[in-house]
């Protein structure tokens, strides 16, 4: 595809910056003092959801170093004396790697499969963060709040994922690797 003029260039820049910007937004939203019960507790898991969702279609726009920085930023902002800084980064990088290596089972499949995949990966993420936080602070942290968070984010996924997928769908590169290059501009797969 050839860039045509300034608008085309802006368009491409906007597209490549979108996943990163969305991730940053959700990282910052983590700190929003929202008082909605349950929902506010699940906010810290939404960045993981964004990483999962964008890794499905455009992992090249969420490069590893960016995920590293975002994860560390999230850990710094969430605070907690003694909590490990970088555990979210580790989780993000692993989620992206898991999605990229399992595209076959996650891309171009019915939504339920994607949801199931997210359930598995998010559980891994929650367990990872819980384990390292418990290890670093050397206290037996009650896993129940973390599981509660997990349950809420699982329920939120079907509400939020289609929105993020809509954002992606306008992207002409949003086609599986196998058919990339054969698709006409504007043609998408879901």
């Amino acid at each position, binding site marked *: 595809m050839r860039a045509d003029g300034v608008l085309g260039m802006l368009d491409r820049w906007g597209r490549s910056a979108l996943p990163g910007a969305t991730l940053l937004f959700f990282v910052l939203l983590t700190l*929003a003092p929202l008082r909605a019960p349950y929902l506010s507790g699940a906010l810290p898991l939404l960045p993981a959801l964004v990483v999962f969702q964008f890794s499905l279609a455009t992992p090249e726009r969420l490069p590893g*170093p960016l*995920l590293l920085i975002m994860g560390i930023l999230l850990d710094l902002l969430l605070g907690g004396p003694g909590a490990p*800084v970088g555990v979210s*980064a580790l989780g993000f990088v692993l989620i992206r790697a898991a999605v990229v290596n399992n595209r076959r089972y996650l891309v171009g499949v019915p939504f339920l499969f994607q949801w199931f995949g997210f359930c598995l990966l998010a559980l891994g993420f929650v367990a990872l963060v*819980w384990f390292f936080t418990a290890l670093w602070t050397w206290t037996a942290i009650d896993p129940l709040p*973390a599981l509660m968070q997990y349950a809420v984010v699982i329920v939120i996924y079907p509400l939020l994922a289609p929105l993020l997928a809509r954002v992606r769908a306008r992207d002409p590169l949003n086609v599986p690797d196998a058919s990339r290059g054969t698709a006409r501009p504007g043609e998408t797969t879901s």
Partner: protein
Amino acid sequence: MAIRDDFEVVASQVRTAVQRFALGLLVIAAFGAMLLGKADTVLVEHARVLALDLASPVLEAIARPVAAANRVIADLKEFASLREENARLREENVRLLAWQTAARRLENENERMRGLANFREGPEASFITARIVGDSVSAYVRGALLNVGRKAGVASGQAVVTGEGLAGRIAEVGENRARVLFVTDVNSRLPVVIERTRERAILAGDNSPQLRLTLLQSVAGVQRGDRIVTSGHGGSFPVGIPVGEVVETGEGSVRVRPFADFSRLEFVRVVDYGVTGLVGSGGPAAPAAPPAGVRVR
């Protein structure tokens, strides 16, 4: 043709190898950050404060619509129980008026007694009122971000109170931001006394809505409904700030419900007890004097 195919195969192999290698590097980098944070806590503290200061304009922008949304949620909740709430408040008002009379009488009496006994009061506490601009509530942390910082005279370790009672203490301070660690956080340890028996204890959080009373000399003396107040041991906290009341006494474990309602905090007060001023060169330090432009009540 065959050469080109071979080339493509090799190229793709190299690409996969690099990708795999990159994942390893990223994982190592993440672990490195975690170990570094464990080894050098001061560095992490600085990084946290820097991140807060950088993120604060965005938080400020997010806070307003979020506050509006919260108000709508709270309104809807209250609307459902308006009648009962009114009746309850009227009843409570009558009771409080009786208490007010009692308090006035006691205050007068206390003042006269102090005059007689030549009692010297502790340092005068002053308040910095702050708005909560961010939550740091997750499965592992119970805290919030305030819109005041070092410039307004906030220092690490100061008490944070609401109208109902103690909310927590200042954990980190940036230029214009501070982070409160709530008393319910798992890292919170607070020296307290039981108001009725004057027995000392430590009040510990465990990330649940209720607190745990530990290091009691005897559990036997504690009853349900006992009020827990700060003891002032350790210096930076004023004496006698109400913290919570005992709701459950079992074998070896006493649970306390905090008075502060963490689910609807909007404004809090940071208590400047002036201890930092006492340590100084003796001059009348006024660290609480807020510069212009900071919301102070």
